[in-house]
């Protein structure tokens, strides 16, 4: 048993050493990453920018934060109390507001909902000749425009 082991022990190291030498020779001749390197040929007529590394922003200080100047309070300026506006309150269940020009229908809906605790079906908008934005706010059927107007104080 012992002599056989002895014989086997030196043999593998020798073959291993031989394999190592061959590998080293091959890498010297062909380069280390030769099997992964493909020769790139330009196949298409257009040249597209190759994808490069794009790093995420890691700012050294946070960006300037400005407060929202068009908050709920700034949107609706005041309700209208003209004769036609009054007619709309009685007949069409709508309230008429003069609103900031930069406000859109969604913002107006949220602002009026918040302030007067009502539900809103629809908002129509126009910009008058004077440059003011007028919003016709149609309330939901279970809310009465007259009651809301009384609460605001425009009746």
């Amino acid at each position, binding site marked *: 048993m012992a002599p056989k082991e002895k014989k086997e022990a030196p043999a593998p190291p020798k073959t291993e050493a031989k394999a190592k030498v061959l590998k080293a020779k091959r890498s010297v001749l062909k380069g280390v990453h030769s099997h992964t390197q493909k020769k790139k040929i330009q196949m298409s007529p257009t040249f597209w920018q190759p994808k490069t590394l794009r790093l995420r922003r890691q700012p050294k*200080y946070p960006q300037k934060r400005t407060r929202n100047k068009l908050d709920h309070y700034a949107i609706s*300026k*005041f309700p209208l109390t003209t004769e036609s506006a009054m007619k709309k309150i009685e007949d069409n269940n709508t309230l008429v507001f003069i609103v900031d020009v930069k406000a859109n229908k969604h913002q107006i809906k949220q602002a009026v909902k918040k302030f007067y605790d009502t539900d809103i079906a629809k908002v129509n908008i126009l910009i008058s000749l004077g440059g003011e934005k007028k919003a016709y706010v149609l309330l939901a059927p279970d809310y009465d425009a007259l009651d809301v107007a009384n609460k605001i*104080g*425009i009746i």
Partner: protein
Amino acid sequence: MAKIKARDLCCKKKEELLKQLDDLKVELSQLCAAKVTGGAASKLSKIRVVRKSIAWVLTVVNQTQKENLRKFYKSKKYKPKKTCAMRRKLNKHEENQKTKKQHQKERLYPLWKYKVKA
């Protein structure tokens, strides 16, 4: 409502100040509605007081915020800074300011777009 003084506001915390700001803004909206319906003279004169109080509260809030930021960034290397020239220019809002008259004029005659037949 008594006139708001900055001395009283300085001691308050930020949440309290913001809550007070909300109350003032609600009051302002009510006063504006009263103005439209021809309210009492006392209400109409109150509008100015409320507007100025809102301004006071915002001033205190922003001033304390800036002061705290300055303290925070004092020892640091990378402060929120642009370039020297940028800091001296008019900012975007200031550049776009127009008188109402100019605004109306520009609105009447905007730049027309023509379609050209190819």
